[in-house]
């Protein structure tokens, strides 16, 4: 039952950890678990439809056979007596019984109807529109999968689908005896009446192992969530962004991973994922939460209350493929679009720590960071990070290490006017950073050719967290500007990381 396995995220993390000696492309497939879950879901729907239609025809034919009085093979088989367990074939016992009655009075029929309705409810509440706009409906409704699996296990218990017994096949094989059905009762014929038995339920064999794994996963999630999380610092950023710095015993993270967070005082059952914005070298881990829906707004409001005790937070994680490849390139080009900038907070901080401590694992000598955003407001906290990095680099005298360019794509004439007016000021008026904000989208051809001329002999890693169209143009540029000579500059595009 493949649908349960992709949602066991702790199991997947465990697999990812043990497979560290395999190529990372294999591990990255584990990141597509939700897509796999949806595909299997669609398959379940399709096969449910086929199964139901087949049984509808089956029952209809049983009903016709029961009502047939023409002495055909079908009617003889239907009239096999019901007294003993081994002799009857047709579950419809009398000509007056309707198929609806049989459906609702048999285990198979009743469980079938119930679990199909559960399936329909699960699918309609999981439509993308409902999921994105009203997540709680999706989350709580989807838990009726418990009813689905229990019903599925019980579904075959009644043995309503019957097959000929072994002994009966020896005495009355259909190939030999089917034509002589009038003579079955005749003691002199070599064909005895056939015996049928109910075929046993098989579905429990398929769902037992994944079901146990899933129960184990939920218990594990519960156990991990009970571990104490200490909130060391709460920062309220402008544009309704909340930063939580936390500490948990035994928690270790890599760059680019995410955690699931639960706040029991808001909702007991909801777990929401957030990318980690702290570096592994720091002694706390942090997340930045923006108010985008019910749960996040409630969370921010709870933390804003100054005189009430800090609410308890439960954390599960970290999950996700780590992005250690970033540290392997001499020159790294990092492109973050919109909310895609969040994993880069962790990466930039980590690169900076490694650089300060002259970590041998860090091959990076230069970073080009491109941040493309429609409007800066929601990511003002990232500005602070860049500003502090800028300042630290000045203090260490390594101003050239991090080059960043910010692109504001949602600009109007007001912005441009202000920028033109403050042209000769040292700091950018929008962000306060030394680097001026550009307006519009970056011209990748210019950027890539500049980088190629500046680093003629290096391997340049290009990392993107953003939309698919951007991925296409970046990978095209990588191919275009990689030199034919393998000793000269080569651009490597990494899009599976995020």
């Amino acid at each position: 039952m493949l649908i349960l396995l992709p949602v066991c995220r702790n199991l997947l993390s465990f697999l990812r950890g043990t497979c560290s000696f395999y190529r990372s492309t294999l591990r990255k497939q584990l990141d597509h678990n939700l897509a796999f879950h949806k595909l299997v879901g669609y398959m379940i729907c399709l096969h449910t439809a086929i199964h139901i239609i087949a049984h509808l025809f089956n029952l209809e034919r049983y009903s016709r056979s029961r009502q047939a009085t023409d002495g055909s093979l079908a009617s003889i088989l239907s009239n096999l007596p019901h007294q003993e367990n081994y002799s009857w074939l047709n579950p419809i016992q009398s000509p007056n019984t309707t198929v609806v009655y049989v459906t609702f009075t048999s285990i198979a029929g009743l469980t079938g109807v119930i679990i199909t309705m559960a399936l329909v409810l699960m699918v309609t509440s999981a439509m993308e529109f409902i999921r994105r706009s009203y997540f709680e409906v999706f989350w709580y409704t989807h838990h009726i999968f418990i009813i689905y699996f229990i019903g599925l296990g019980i579904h075959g218990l009644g043995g309503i689908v019957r097959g000929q017994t072994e002994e009966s096949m020896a005495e009355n094989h259909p190939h030999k005896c089917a034509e002589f059905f009038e003579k079955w009762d005749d003691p002199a014929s070599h064909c005895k009446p056939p015996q049928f038995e109910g075929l046993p339920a098989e579905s429990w064999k398929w769902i037992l192992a994944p079901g146990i794994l899933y129960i184990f996963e939920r218990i594990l999630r519960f156990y991990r969530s009970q571990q104490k999380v200490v909130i060391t610092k709460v920062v309220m950023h402008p544009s309704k962004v909340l930063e939580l710095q936390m500490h948990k015993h035994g928690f270790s993270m890599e760059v680019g991973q995410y955690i699931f967070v639960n706040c029991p005082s808001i909702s007991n059952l909801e777990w929401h994922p957030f990318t980690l914005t702290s570096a592994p070298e720091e002694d706390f881990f942090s997340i930045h939460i923006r108010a985008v829906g019910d749960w996040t707004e409630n969370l921010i409001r709870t933390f804003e209350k100054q005189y009430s005790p800090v609410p308890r937070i439960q954390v599960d994680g970290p999950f996700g493929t780590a992005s250690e490849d970033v540290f392997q390139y001499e020159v790294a080009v990092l492109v973050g679009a919109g909310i895609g900038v969040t994993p880069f907070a962790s990466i930039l901080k980590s690169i900076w720590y490694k650089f300060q401590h002259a970590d041998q694992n860090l091959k990076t000598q230069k970073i080009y960071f491109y941040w493309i955003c429609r409007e800066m407001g929601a990511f003002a906290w990232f500005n602070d990070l860049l500003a502090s990095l800028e300042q630290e680099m000045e203090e260490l005298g390594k101003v050239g290490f991090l080059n960043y360019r910010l692109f504001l794509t949602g600009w109007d004439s007001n912005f441009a006017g202000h920028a033109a007016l403050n042209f000769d000021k040292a700091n950018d008026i929008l962000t306060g950073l030394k680097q001026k904000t550009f307006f519009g989208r970056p011209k990748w051809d210019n950027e890539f050719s500049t980088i190629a001329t500046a680093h003629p002999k290096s391997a340049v890693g290009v990392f993107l967290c953003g939309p698919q169209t951007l991925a296409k143009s970046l990978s095209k540029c990588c191919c275009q500007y990689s030199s034919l000579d393998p000793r000269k500059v080569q651009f490597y595009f990494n899009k599976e990381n995020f």
Partner: protein
Amino acid sequence: MGQIEWAMWANEQALASGLILITGGIVATAGQFTQWYLGAYSIAAGVLVCLLEYPRGKRTKGSTMERCGQKYLTRVVKLFGPLTRNYYIRAFLHLGLAVPAGFLLATILGTACLAIASGIYLLAAIRGEQWSPIEPKPKERPQIGGTIKQPPSNPPPRPPAEARKKPSEEAAGIPTGGPQENPMPVNDEVV
């Protein structure tokens, strides 16, 4: 759960039930089951439900994603006015449509799903939700000549518009527009 608009989920559920009704009806009619005329009814009811439910209503909060090609049906559904706007009527309509299909096994699943959709619509109606059509915003045709403003009234170099406004606030006596003022208003002659 406070902000959910139940009608959106009821709409998805009803659309799914319509499709299930059509499928069950086709199976019953094509297989010539007993009482197959109920299957034919179920196809018709399913088609009606699908046509009614295909255009998604507008959410009260936030933007709504339209279904592909729904604007033609939106016009038709809008024509019925309060019959389609009110969710009580929809709830009872769906319940009524569902009942006859419940007598045939092939379509009974459609009945159950449509009954659930009807229940959710009833909940939506009790909470005061309404169906409103998603209308495309009329494209604003650019007025010819409307964006041509008064030509600049002071010679270059000129600071941008906001900077030009500042001196007029600070010193009330100086005429607006900077050092040069045109003796008569200047209009462009483009019609």
